[in-house]
């Protein structure tokens, strides 16, 4: 066998037929998700098309500044998506979320490229962009679950927060129970996927 088989453009287009399954289910059970589903597929196609072309040039140029700028661009996109999906006020939350993603992704990328892979140039496009994209893509789900649960619970259970303040907690001590709950919820899908890794593959 000579490596893996290439997928033809026609075959790739045919893959869209798989979309019929959720569409039929949505129609049958009257789930109002068709519009969102179609918009997401169009967005995904457009984004992958543009990114695919852009990446050809990025990999060819392999310029450290451009590679770093690409990763920062991905982080901005992930921060906007998280604030959006968690229904948070952009003006207040976008910058702190961006900063949190920048520091955490940056540190993990450095650890992976410099320590684990032992690259001479940690900004190498083949590693920085690809691993950065995988990190952000995979952590996005957990980020959205954790951040939205944290603020939703605080809003829903304000009485609990106020009770802890009244019992002598400082602000940090009073939010710890909420932080604990949201961290648990955010880590749950990853714990489940790690536990089935090698048996069931569902993370890229």
């Amino acid at each position, binding site marked *: 066998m000579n490596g893996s088989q290439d997928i033809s453009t026609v075959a790739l287009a045919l893959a869209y037929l798989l979309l019929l399954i959720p569409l039929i289910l949505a129609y049958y059970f009257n789930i109002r998700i068709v519009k969102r589903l179609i918009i997401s597929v169009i967005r995904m196609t457009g984004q992958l098309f543009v990114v695919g072309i852009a990446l050809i040039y990025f990999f060819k140029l392999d310029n450290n500044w451009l590679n770093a700028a690409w990763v920062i661009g991905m982080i901005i996109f992930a921060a906007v998506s998280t604030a959006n999906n968690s229904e948070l006020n952009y003006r207040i939350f976008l910058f702190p979320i961006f900063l949190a993603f920048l520091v955490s992704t940056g540190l993990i990328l450095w650890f992976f490229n410099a320590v684990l892979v032992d690259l001479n140039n940690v900004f190498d496009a083949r590693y920085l962009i690809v691993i950065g994209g995988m990190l952000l893509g995979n952590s996005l789900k957990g980020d959205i679950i954790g951040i939205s649960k944290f603020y939703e619970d605080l809003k829903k*259970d304000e*009485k*609990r927060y*106020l*009770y*802890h*303040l*009244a*019992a*002598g*907690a*400082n602000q940090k*001590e009073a939010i*710890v*129970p909420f932080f604990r709950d949201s961290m648990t919820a955010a880590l749950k899908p990853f714990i489940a996927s790690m536990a089935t890794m090698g048996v069931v593959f569902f993370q890229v």
Partner: protein
Amino acid sequence: MNIISLKDIDLKFGSKHVFKSFGLDIQKGEKVRIKGKSGVGKTTLFRLILGFLKPEKGNILYDGLKLDSNSVWDVRRSIAYVSQDMSIGEGLVKDFLEEIFSYEANKHLNVDLENILTLFRQFDLSGELYRGRISDLSGGEKQRVGIVASILLDRSTYLLDEITSALDEALKEKVARCFLGLNEKTILIISHDQVWEAENVKLIDLDSLN
């Protein structure tokens, strides 16, 4: 000497005035029952004293100290608050109590298991319940866990908001006797229960004051 003073307080929610030029003085060691129609601002009064709400006008003084964003932390550490619908999370009762007494402000209290279980017994709560889950507790049991926590906090002022509402008569008596017997403590009680009517309890009717 006044421990709590509310001076010329204005507060409104939307277009509704809850307090208008409202004033109140509570003396150290006083036992005060606050009554009034629903919506008159009884719980709001407690939230103002705890700094959870800011009046539009007027000042709140606690032990001579003006309540503001800096002093509020010290003031809260002198007050124990128990409400009728205790929202204390969903984990273990034991973890909830341990968390409260692990706070920097409460570490000096050195509360041990024996202290907790003695009070649990006093308020008809079993030892198994201490190791049980909060979600398995009834409303009355949650109230009593909150009462136990507040007594162990040993604060100089107690704000008790309908804390006997979910208890039977015998327990109501027990709780009222316990708090009204704390001679040096200042106790403010919001309640419609007769058990709080006693010779040393001053009655404040918010309907007539506001």
